[in-house]
C-alpha cells in the first residue's frame, strides 16, 4: 500500500512548497492527495525535506484530524454529526447508513470498500442532515438519498 517511490514523491512535493513559509501543512495535504494517506514512513522524509525534526512532523500529523495514518476505503462517506444536523434528525440517518453500509461511524469496512466518518459541520446547516460522499455534498438526507448513497459506494 505504501508506494515504492514515496521518497521521490515527498521530495518532489516538498520542492513545490519550499519557497513558502510554514510549508508543512501544505506538504502533508499534498502527500495525502497524491498517496491517499500519510504513511508514517513519510514523516522522516518530510522532516528532512523541510529541515524540521521528525518529532515536529509527527506532532503535526497526529494533531490534525484530516491526516490519515491508515489508508481510507475506496469510497468515503462523511456524515455531519454537529448540532444543526442533530436538530434535523441525523441520528436516524447515522443508524440507517451504519446498518446498510455494514460499518460503524469512524471505521473502514473490512473489505476496504467504504470508510464511514463523522465530520462536525459542513456549513450547510439550514438543510441537513448533510454528508460528503466521495467529496460530493449531499443535503436533506432521507431514506431515498440513503439508498442512493449505498448504491453508489457499493459499485
Amino acid at each position, binding site marked *: 500500500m505504501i508506494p515504492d517511490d514515496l521518497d521521490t514523491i515527498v521530495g518532489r512535493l516538498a520542492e513545490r512548497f519550499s519557497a513558502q*513559509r*510554514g*510549508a*508543512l*501543512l*501544505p506538504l*502533508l*495535504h499534498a502527500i495525502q492527495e497524491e498517496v491517499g494517506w500519510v504513511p508514517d514512513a513519510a514523516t522522516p522524509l518530510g522532516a528532512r525535506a*523541510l529541515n*524540521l525534526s521528525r518529532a*515536529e512532523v509527527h*506532532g*503535526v500529523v497526529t*494533531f*490534525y*484530524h*484530516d*491526516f490519515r495514518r491508515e489508508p481510507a476505503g475506496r469510497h468515503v462517506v462523511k456524515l455531519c454529526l*454537529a*448540532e*444543526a*444536523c*442533530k*436538530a*434535523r434528525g441525523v441520528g436516524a440517518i447515522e443508524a440507517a447508513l451504519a446498518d446498510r453500509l455494514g460499518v460503524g461511524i469512524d471505521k473502514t469496512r473490512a473489505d476496504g470498500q467504504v470508510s464511514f466518518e463523522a*465530520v*462536525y*459541520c*459542513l*456549513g*450547510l*446547516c*439550514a*438543510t*441537513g442532515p*448533510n454528508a460528503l460522499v466521495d*467529496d460530493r*455534498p*449531499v*443535503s*436533506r438526507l432521507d431514506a431515498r438519498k440513503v439508498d442512493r448513497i449505498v448504491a453508489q459506494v457499493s459499485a
Partner: protein
Amino acid sequence: MTRAYISCDMASVALGADDIAEALTAAGCTVIRTGARGLFAIEPLVEIETTDGARIAYGPVEPEDVPAILDDTHPNRIGDLATLPFFAKQQRFTFARCGITDPLSMADYTAHDGWKGLAAARALPPQAVVDAVKASGLRGRGGAGFPTGIKWQTVLDAASPEKFIVCNADEGDSGTFADRMLMEGDPYCLLEGMAIAGHAVGASHGYIYVRSEYPFAIRALNAAIERAGPILAPFTVEVRVGAGAYVCGEETALLESIEGKRGQVRAKPPLPAIQGLFGQPTVINNVLSLAAIPFILAEGPERYAEVGFSRSRGTMPVQLAGNVKNGGLFEIGFGITLGELVNDIGGGTESGRPVRAVQVGGPLGAYFPPSMFDLAFDYEAFAAAGGLIGHAGITVFDDTVDMAAMARFAMEFCAVESCGKCTPCRIGSTRGVETLDRIIGDRIKGAAQREQALEAMPQMRNAKVKHRSVDEEIGVLRDLCETMKFGSLCALGGFTPYPVLSALDHFPEDFGGARALPQAAE
C-alpha cells in the same frame, strides 16, 4: 436566448443545483451561476431574466421542471424575490451582491459598486482609514466582538518592516455558514476588505485560512485571487487550508497552524497585533469583519453606524439553522429580538412541532428556551443573559430534543477538539462527559441499577462509601464547569460550560435531578 440564474453555492449544489443547470443548458438557456440568495427552503432556485432585465424566481424545482419554468406555468413560481418578506426585511450591506452576481466576474463586481471602497481608502492616509473603521463602530464578527478599528490601530502603531493581514475563515461553529456563502458568492468583496486593511496598517501580504471542509470556497478564492491580482497589487493574498481542527479557529492557534505547527493556543500577551504571524504585527479578522470594510469605506462610516443597537453597530448576517422552516442567511441591523428571528423570519420549526430550544453562537454558545425570546440581538444583552452571539448562528430544536444529550455532546466536542495546552479543558471535558454519562445513565436505567455499574462504584470516584445521587452529580458537573470557565486559557475550555450550564438551568427536567420541574400535565 433566455438567461437563467442558478446558484453554484455548495449548499445549492448539495440540493441538486448542478443537475438543474445542466437541464437548463440542454433546453437552450444561457446559464449564469451566482452565489446563493440565502433562503434555502426555496432551493434549488432558478431565476429567469425577463426582457426588461427583471428576474422571475421559481423554487424549489427539479430538473424535470425546466419546461414548466420556461413557459412560466410552474406552480412554484415566486416572482420577484425582493418582495418576499424574508428578503424585503433585510438590510444587506455585506451581502448586497451575493446571489445576484457571478462570483468570479470582475465585470459584475465592478458594475455592482466593487472596488469603490479600495479606491476611497487608497486616496486616504492610513490613519484616516483606521479612523473610518473606528467611526463605523464595527466589532469583530468572529465571536469576541472586539472593536476592529482599535485592533487595526495597534498594528498601524507597531513599527515593523513586515506586517500581515490574516483572514480567519475557519468557521468551525455548527449552525454557521455566512463566511462560506460570502467566500463562494462574493470572493472579491473579502479580497477588497483585506487590501484595504493592508493599506490601513502597512501590510503587504495576506493569508486566508480556510477550513478544509470548504472545498468550494477554496476554489473560488484561488480563482478570484488570480483574477484580481492586478487590482490588489502591491498587496498579495494566499490561501491556506486547515486540516480539521476546530481549535484552529482560535486566532493564535490559527497562526501556529499557518506557521506549519500543531494548532496549539498561545498565551496572550503578546497580542497578535504586536507579535503575530512569524512574530510580526498581524491583523487577524473574521471573514465578515473584513467583508464589511468595503461598504464602510465606499458609503462612509456613518451609513454603517446609523444602523444597530446600543454598542452593537451596523448589520449582522444572522444564520438560521437546524430545525427551522426558513433556514438561511438573514442580514439585519442589531437589535432585532431572538423571537422575531426564530418565529417571524424563521417561521418556527420545519417539523411543525413547538420550538423547545435554540443554541446561539455555535458549540460554545448557550441554549435558550422560548421564554427568553424577547432578548435583543446585541453583544451585551446576550452576555448579560449568560450567552453569546458568537458568529451569529442560531440553531433551532423542536420538542424532541434531549438537552442532557446536547450537554454531553458539548463536553465531548470539547474533549475531542481540545488543543491540550491546559488542564481544565483537556481533562475537565473528559470528566464532564463521564459525569454526564452517569447522570444520563441514571435517568435511563434508574438509580437502583447504577450501583452495579463499574464506573459508578465508590472506589472509582474517591467517594466515601456510597455512590453519588443525581443531584450530587449535577453539583459535581456545575463545579467542574466553574473550573473550566475560570481556569481555561482560551474560549474552547472557557465557554464549553455555556451550553452545559444553560441546558442545566433552563431544561433541568431533562437531567432528572430533584430540582427538576414537574412534568407538564399532558
